[in-house]
């Protein structure tokens, strides 16, 4: 599965939740949810299926509290389809491969940069946030106690994080300028993911299936 073109994987992951929402619940939504769960199981029962089920489980509980068994089933099946599809997608599609596919499809260098830079910046800043928390605690900052004390601690923790991140913007801009990144420039991908007419047809087929399901739901079922 992971050898498929990134756009095919995206189309599959997007069409399953869409079909689950378009088709009447719970019966109609059950098929896309089962397909999503099977895909997750095929990608790895412990690595993919289990996290998907653990992510979906609290929603079933919350839905039972609010809507009882009938509402829980109707919403829960659709939510499970959405969660399982996305967890599966993240497991089988490395972001770098998606960026290569976007570049090969003609997306500009800035778009590819935004996607790649975001994915690399988030873990770095999260790590920095944890370091700031530890450093401020070493200096005696107490982040517990009364609400006022907690808000003071929030300011002391958040301000250095945000300011240091903003100071990074100049360094990043300089690096991008020196690499000649500008709007309208196209990059040549080093290893574009292989695509095929069959996969392109499959993607259009999924789009068509969603449109037909929507039309059937709106026109014939009211």
């Amino acid at each position, binding site marked *: 599965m992971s050898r498929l073109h990134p756009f095919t994987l995206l189309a599959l992951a997007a069409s399953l939740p869409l079909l689950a*929402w378009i088709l009447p619940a719970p019966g109609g939504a059950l098929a896309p949810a089962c397909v999503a769960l099977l895909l997750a199981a095929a990608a790895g029962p412990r690595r993919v299926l289990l996290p998907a089920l653990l*992510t979906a489980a*609290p*929603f079933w509980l*919350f*839905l039972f*509290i*609010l809507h009882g068994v009938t509402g829980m089933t109707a*919403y829960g099946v*659709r*939510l499970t389809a*959405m*969660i399982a*599809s*996305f*967890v599966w997608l*993240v497991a089988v599609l490395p*972001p770098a491969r998606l960026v290569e596919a976007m570049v090969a499809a003609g997306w500009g260098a*800035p778009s590819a*940069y*935004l996607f790649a*830079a*975001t*994915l*690399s*910046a*988030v873990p770095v*800043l*999260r790590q*920095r*946030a*944890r370091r*700031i*928390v530890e450093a401020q605690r070493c200096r005696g900052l107490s*982040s*517990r106690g009364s*609400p006022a004390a*907690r*808000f003071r*601690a*929030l*300011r002391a*923790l*958040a*301000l250095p*994080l*945000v*300011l240091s*991140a*903003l*100071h*990074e*913007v*100049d360094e*990043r*801009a300089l690096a*991008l300028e020196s690499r000649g*990144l*500008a*709007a309208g420039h196209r990059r040549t991908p080093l290893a574009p993911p292989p695509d095929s007419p069959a996969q392109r047809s499959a993607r259009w087929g999924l789009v068509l299936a969603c449109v037909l399901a929507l039309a059937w739901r709106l026109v014939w079922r009211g």
Partner: protein
Amino acid sequence: MSIRLLALIPVAVAINLALSAVVDATGLPLFLDTVGTILASALAGPVVGIGTGALTSLTNSLRNPTFLPFVAVQVIVALYAWGAARAGLFRSFRVAVPTGLGLGIIAAAASTPISYGIFGCSTSGGVTIMTALGRSLGLSPLGACFFGSFISDFGDKAVSFALVATVLHALPRRTAARFPLALRAIGGGGRGAAGPA
């Protein structure tokens, strides 16, 4: 879009997603997942803010796909923050906090149809409890859902606005002047490292 503004977007997204570590440390019932979006809009305008918001929802959905449908709320936050920055509403806490409370109401109104239609108001434990409380108070299902979203968004957006006002005032004036809206957002004249009054 200039290279500097392009470079700001991933940084602002990372701010949105990294502040959860800070919130966890304080144990406050906040998300602060729109601080980067508000900051990007206040510094650089709506395009950068909307880009930050959309990319935040997309990146967050890689971790938990239930964030993706709320991309519309991030766009509304970006537009509201841009308007607030143009009007200089980050000039002091006295102005920024009520402006943030206003955003809390708008964000709750925008997220309610999404939360109700897609998640049956079960987006988190807190929202579920508040929605159940609203139902027990006799509110309609949609009204109870708005009540749950409102309680969770109201304070969060006020604190987010206050935090962004603090950051804008703490930015060195030379750094702030590199972004098109920063000085206007704080009322035309930055005061160096002094905090908002």
